[in-house]
């Protein structure tokens, strides 16, 4: 960006400089030439040196009429100036020292001149005093150089500023990105100075991060407290019920035993839901990667299939799988849980004699996992919601389950930098996970 800015500014300055130079110079040259040409147009008609002299003998003119052999016929110059330079095509310019005027001995006058050759081979030089014009021109030139220099200064400064802005915003963005990716809220943007607006912004963002970290810690604290304060009495309830169930007078009474057993299972279910909920929020907020290791996803999926095989057989479900050998950095237990939940869902919603398709492929840089059942699918309005906590499809309200299975899958997918999406395929629900 800085380079682009530099190039744009540079081009603008060059164009501007060229135009101002071209126009002032052109104007000046043309003006002078016009004066000389006017003089020449008169003088060239006359052959008589006296007449020429009387016409040209003015303070702002120099003239010199030379015979073909180079002798002076008439003129206020004694000879042709030694050093001349070319002002434009056919126009010369030279300087002549001015006969000393009391206090400024060294002044020179600049003249622009043309030489006209008469038919009789006499040559006439007419010069116009251009001292005021050249001094103007020099001033103009000086100003142009000054402005170009100034512009260059501006360009360099703006390049430095834009580079400074770019590095600093990039640094802020990089820190933010790292925080998003690692979930490590203890990272802060490094402050290199205190005086500029960007450092001020970085400081504000750091304060914001402090605040978020504090809040996150608070949330974790609260959920830990909930975990502790609610789990402990729940555990006691569970223990006491188990204890009751094992007592002789209950164990011998079929009806009482069944009631207590049901209560034990209810508390068990409560604990499971509770644990699942806590686990999801832990996975979502924690971003723990310490258990990550390279995993062959196909093997892991094979283990999942193997675990669910008896359930598939019970419902005579045909399983079709198509796996490539792909390695992913991941937490094997969490991934097993996620794929297990997906498989569990698929088995639950696929009718007897149905089929489930599993696919694992590499698409570009992404690892894509697809599971498709031929169950009833999900109403298209609900497709977005199925990863929300406690979502239950209308049709599955009365089947067992907590409504947390897919939320957990979503959390695990997020942890592995994946993205899960749901759609109704040709047969049933199709879930796709893309790991980048």
């Amino acid at each position: 960006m800085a380079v682009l800015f530099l190039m744009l500014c540079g081009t603008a300055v060059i164009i501007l400089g060229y135009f101002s130079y071209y126009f002032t110079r052109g104007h000046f040259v043309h003006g002078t030439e016009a004066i000389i040409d006017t003089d020449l147009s008169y003088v060239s008609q006359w052959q008589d040196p006296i007449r020429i002299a009387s016409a040209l003998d003015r303070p702002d003119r120099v003239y010199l009429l030379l015979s073909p052999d180079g002798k002076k016929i008439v003129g206020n110059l004694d000879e042709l100036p030694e050093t001349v330079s070319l002002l434009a095509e056919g126009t010369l310019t030279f300087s002549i020292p001015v006969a000393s005027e009391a206090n400024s001995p060294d002044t020179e006058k600049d003249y622009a001149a043309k030489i006209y050759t008469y038919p009789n081979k006499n040559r006439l030089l007419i010069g116009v005093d251009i001292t005021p014009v050249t001094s103007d021109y020099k001033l103009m030139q000086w100003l142009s150089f000054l402005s170009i220099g100034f512009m260059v200064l501006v360009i360099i400064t703006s390049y430095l500023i834009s580079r400074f802005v770019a590095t600093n915003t990039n640094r802020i963005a990089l820190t933010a990105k790292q925080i998003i990716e690692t979930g490590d809220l203890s990272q802060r943007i490094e402050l290199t100075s205190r005086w500029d607006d960007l450092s001020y912004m970085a400081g504000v963002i750091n304060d914001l991060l402090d605040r978020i970290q504090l809040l996150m810690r608070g949330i974790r604290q609260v959920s830990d407290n909930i975990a502790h304060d609610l789990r402990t009495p729940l555990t006691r309830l569970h223990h006491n019920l188990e204890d009751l169930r094992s007592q002789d007078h209950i164990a011998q009474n079929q009806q009482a035993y069944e009631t207590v057993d049901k209560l034990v299972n209810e508390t068990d279910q409560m604990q499971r839901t509770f644990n699942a909920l806590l686990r999801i929020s832990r996975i979502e907020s924690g971003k723990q990667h310490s258990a990550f290791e390279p995993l062959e996803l196909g093997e892991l999926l094979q283990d999942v299939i193997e675990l669910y095989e008896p359930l598939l057989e019970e419902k005579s479900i045909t399983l079709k799988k198509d796996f490539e050998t792909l390695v992913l950095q991941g937490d094997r237990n969490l991934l097993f849980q996620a794929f297990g939940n997906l498989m569990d869902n698929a088995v639950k919603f696929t009718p007897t004699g149905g089929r489930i398709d599993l696919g694992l492929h590499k698409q570009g840089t992404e690892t894509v996992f697809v599971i498709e059942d031929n169950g009833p699918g999900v109403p298209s309005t609900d497709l977005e919601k199925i990863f929300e906590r406690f979502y239950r499809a209308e049709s599955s309200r009365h089947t067992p389950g907590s409504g947390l299975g897919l939320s957990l899958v979503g959390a695990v997918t997020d942890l592995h930098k994946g993205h899960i999406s749901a759609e109704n395929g040709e047969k049933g629900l199709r879930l796709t996970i893309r790991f980048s």
Partner: protein
Amino acid sequence: MRILYVEDDQEVLNYISNGLKQEGHNLDTADNGKDGLFLATTENYDVIIVDRMLPELDGLTIIRTLRGTDNHTPVLILSALGEVDDRVKGLRSGGDDYLVKPFAFAELLARIEVLGKRNGPQGNQQETRLTAQDLEVDLLSRKVKRGGEAIELQSREFRLLEYLLKHKGQVVTRTMLLENVWDYHFDPQTNVIDVHISRLRGKVDKDFDVSLIKTIRGAGYIIEDNP
């Protein structure tokens, strides 16, 4: 078995202590880390149960200190933090098993029995042949026979049976089976383990009068040597 239980929640401590005593275990308790470590280093236990979060000294420090002094008593860690990272941390610091609160007493009991046996005399030698009543399993040739008749098992069924037989006479819970036979720590949403067991039963018990694999209500499964 001689068990040390270090726990700061008085009610859980009482409940578990009573339960373990009823099961005939000899129990010492401590309600803080310092006392726990003192008992663990001065006395000889078969199994130590420690809570992770303890006053004075936390559970993991106790384990590390024990292991540092070459004490290899099996340790079961109890924790209210049910995270995978915590489990990994716990096991890395030298714990032998990890149980997340809340847990069923039966689960704790089953795990303690297994841990206690591990340190016992026959736990260290490698057996190549496992038996229970008229069932024989050869771990080398991977052949299973019952009453002289060969039984064909799939590899996972074989490993299920092997695990049950290795812990013959001990209750094995569903979670223990998942962790040891499948080698994954996760929470199945359905009774998928029961289905595996019933398939195994279909092969091992179906044509015989005596059922070897018994279900223990509210706990898990067991294979016993005596009918």
